[in-house]
């Protein structure tokens, strides 16, 4: 058969004949990428900034999302009435020029800028603000919880004046408005579908916003693919001053696989890895000449201890757990983050240093156990520690804690839980594990935000609260603090709450300050982080208009 070689060429042809047609039945799809509104077709001179993150938003709708990746998009394509000060995060004017509070009627009145236009050229007016707030409350998703309990109605006083009537006093109202992004009411109404869940408002434009933006920001969305990527292009009609070398285009890709993101940065297909990169990734990339920085956020990593299940319902056990936590080692796993001294990170407004602090001391832990009701029955009361699958290196933190707890006599089990199940479990006290590990960040730069989400009864039943405190006294304190309009008073009340929590309840272990670790290719761009100007509100570091593209 040796002289059959010649025939082999014919083989390929023969096998091609029988090629598969099975997969020809592609459906006719509606285009998920939208036509660019402006001249966004990338010419060769255009600069592009390419980033990766772990999850891209589900929609461009600012009334829907509330995560750090959502914020990253919103801050670039939408604008709010106020924005956080780059230094301490306190509110400063943005679309609003000034505001006033009327204590008697509990009303905030805002004066609006007159030079603002939306991306389609429509002028920004008070009606847009009213539309956006009404819509936010109607949809009641995302950041709506910041306003639902307080905003009674929105009133358009004139084209440049708008008033919010509150139904109870709300101290951090101005700060919370940083998350209230203004939509282009005319564009939205034009693109609203009649059929929808919002009565006469139809779908309230939710379908349109699935892959379009309707804001006044420096960028606008040109392509949006759920769970994959989105693209932004500079808004030609922007009222503000475009950065000189700001990227003309931005592409954000979703990447869950750490190895791939690493390879992409190395192969030059990506400029910046956003979010929490693992310390080993950071180490290997920085060794290869890439830049990295620690960007502290207004949040912490918490071990949340279930105060309603055995044996963690005993405060001594919780204290023992706090003593069994090797804070230094944990912070080291995350590449050396600032330690936490209480439930609030020190950079956040309303932080108080006057708290009971715990250190890693197994002897003290044992002493606490001896005082507890479970001193003799530790073996029959196992402790379950849960963490979220694929959530960075929280597994390692849990492992360290578990190891320490085991060494002081507990029976410990660890479970890695998919995000969905994790949330499922947290909806009920009976399915919530003894301890969970999770990062929580403030919605607006003020201690109240964290305290409310972490410990108030009315925000119970989600992954931010495995403690199940349901402590009436604490609830009252939080409510009182939030409704205090005077900043100094509020700040003191926050301090009081922090003292109470760490001293008496000990519902959580505060490990370290949540710190993002972006890694980037310094040859392709320059940004505030590289200059050491790290902004407290994470997304403002990614305000692309401030970037300087190189080369």
């Amino acid at each position: 058969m040796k002289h059959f070689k010649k025939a082999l060429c014919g083989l390929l042809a023969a096998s091609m004949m029988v090629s598969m047609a099975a997969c020809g039945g592609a459906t006719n799809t509606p285009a998920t990428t939208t036509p660019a509104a402006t001249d966004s077709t990338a010419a060769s001179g255009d600069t592009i900034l390419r980033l990766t993150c772990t999850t891209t938003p589900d929609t461009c709708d600012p009334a829907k999302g509330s995560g750090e990746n959502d914020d990253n998009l919103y801050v670039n394509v939408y604008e709010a009435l106020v924005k956080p000060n780059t230094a301490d995060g306190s509110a400063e004017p943005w679309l609003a020029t000034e505001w006033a509070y009327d204590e008697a009627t509990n009303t905030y009145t805002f004066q609006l800028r007159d030079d603002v236009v939306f991306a389609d050229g429509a002028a920004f007016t008070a009606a847009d603000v009213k539309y956006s707030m009404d819509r936010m409350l109607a949809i009641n998703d995302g950041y709506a919880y910041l306003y639902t309990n307080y905003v009674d109605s929105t009133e358009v006083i004139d084209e440049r004046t708008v008033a919010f009537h509150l139904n109870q006093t709300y101290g951090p109202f101005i700060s919370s408005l940083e998350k209230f992004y203004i939509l282009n009411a005319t564009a939205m109404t034009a693109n609203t579908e009649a059929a929808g869940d919002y009565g006469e408002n139809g779908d309230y434009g939710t379908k349109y916003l699935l892959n379009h933006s309707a804001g006044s920001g420096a960028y606008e969305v040109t392509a949006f693919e759920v769970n994959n990527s989105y693209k932004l292009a500079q808004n030609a009609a922007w009222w503000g001053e475009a950065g000189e070398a700001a990227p003309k285009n931005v592409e954000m890709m979703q990447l869950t696989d750490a190895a791939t993101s690493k390879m992409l940065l190395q192969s030059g297909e990506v400029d910046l890895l956003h979010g929490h990169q693992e310390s080993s990734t950071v180490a290997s990339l920085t060794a290869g000449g890439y830049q990295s920085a620690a960007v502290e956020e207004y949040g912490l990593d918490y071990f949340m201890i279930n105060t309603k299940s055995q044996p963690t319902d005993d405060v001594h056990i919780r204290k023992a757990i706090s003593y069994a936590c090797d804070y230094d080692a944990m912070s080291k796993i995350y590449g050396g983050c600032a330690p936490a001294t209480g439930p609030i990170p020190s950079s956040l407004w309303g932080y108080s240093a006057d708290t009971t602090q715990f250190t890693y001391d197994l002897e003290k832990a044992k002493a606490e156990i001896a005082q507890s009701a479970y001193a003799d029955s530790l073996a029959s009361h196992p402790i379950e520690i849960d963490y979220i699958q694929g959530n960075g290196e929280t597994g390692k933190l849990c492992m360290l804690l578990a190891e320490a707890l085991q060494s002081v006599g507990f029976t410990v089990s660890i479970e890695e839980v998919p995000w969905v199940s994790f949330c499922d479990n947290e909806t009920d006290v009976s399915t919530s594990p003894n301890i969970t590990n999770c990062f929580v960040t403030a919605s607006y730069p003020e201690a109240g935000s964290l305290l409310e989400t972490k410990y108030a009864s009315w925000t119970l039943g989600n992954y931010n609260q495995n403690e199940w405190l349901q402590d009436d006294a604490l609830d009252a304190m939080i409510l009182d603090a939030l409704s205090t309009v005077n900043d100094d008073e509020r700040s003191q009340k926050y301090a009081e709450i922090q003292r109470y929590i760490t001293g008496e309840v000990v519902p959580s272990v505060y490990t370290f300050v949540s710190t993002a670790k972006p890694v980037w290719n310094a040859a392709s761009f320059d940004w505030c982080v590289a200059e050491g100007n790290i902004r407290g509100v994470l997304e403002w570091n990614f305000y692309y208009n401030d970037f300087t593209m190189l080369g």
Partner: protein
Amino acid sequence: MKKSGNMILKKILHMVFILLLLSLIVFSFIRLIPGDPVKSSLGPLASEDTIAQYRHQLYFDRPLLVQWFHWLTGVVTRGDFGTSLYTHRAVSLDIAQYLPKSLELCALAALLILVLGVFFGTLAALFKNTWVDNLIRFITYLGVVTPAYAFGIVFLLIFAYGKGAFPIGGFPTIPAEFVRTGAPALDCLLSGQFALFVKCMQSYFLPCISVAIGSIAYQARIHRSSMVENVNADYIAFAEVAGVSKGKLICKHLMKPSFIPTLTVYGLQVASLLGNAFIIENIFRINGFSQYALNVILNKDPYGIIAVTIIFGIIFSVVNMLVDIGVAMLDPRIRLRGGQ
């Protein structure tokens, strides 16, 4: 011809029946899930009212059969597979977004499996018991026993330092005006963007190879043994003595009958490609259907899971039907006995 038309019609009806049954079973299965998918999908802030309302909207508060029937009418009349609790939009939109590129990936992989599998199988069979055969057999053995993710990772490592010849970061952007089907390479072809097409194919190269390599190896083994069996058949000796030229002997007289078992196995390989592609899709950043399937399953998204299983069922059935037809075309014995 009319007979074969009837046969195909019969197969299609049979397929529809199986798919209906499949959807019903998945529906009952979904109802068995512990936990509340509706509640967890609405997030922590949703009120009881909203949840109840949403549950009603999704027919989750009605009897199983009513829900199933409602879903079925939706699918049949409007192509509406329900709303995903994971992406919060119509499942049909998700399918339209994710399926085309996955299908394209799998179609290309399927082509690779066929061409390379048959090529190496033939090579090994023709050089049976020589070093060529031994080498191919060794490599295909490795191919069969190595998990797909291992290949993906190896390729990723190798080509990450190749800088660009075969990109690892997904597809080039297809400008919106060219998007027709959602399958990038096909769209480029349809709109005549050949430069872009080449780029797409470059992007497809690594994931395709990674998805296909195990199947290529398996296919090569099957084809080799099928060829070896036929080489000893009387009709090959007869044709050889009768003076048929070597080329024709191999490409026609030997290849055609050897293809019958090859094709049957090929069908199974192709039908399972899509289901096994998720790791590769993840590694190579192809946000495709397989990845979507994994996500809806992990997120316990009822309508997503149903749609995903049905789509897989359809793909499997269609591929199998095509293989049956292909085998019948190759093998007159089947064709002339009326499909038995």
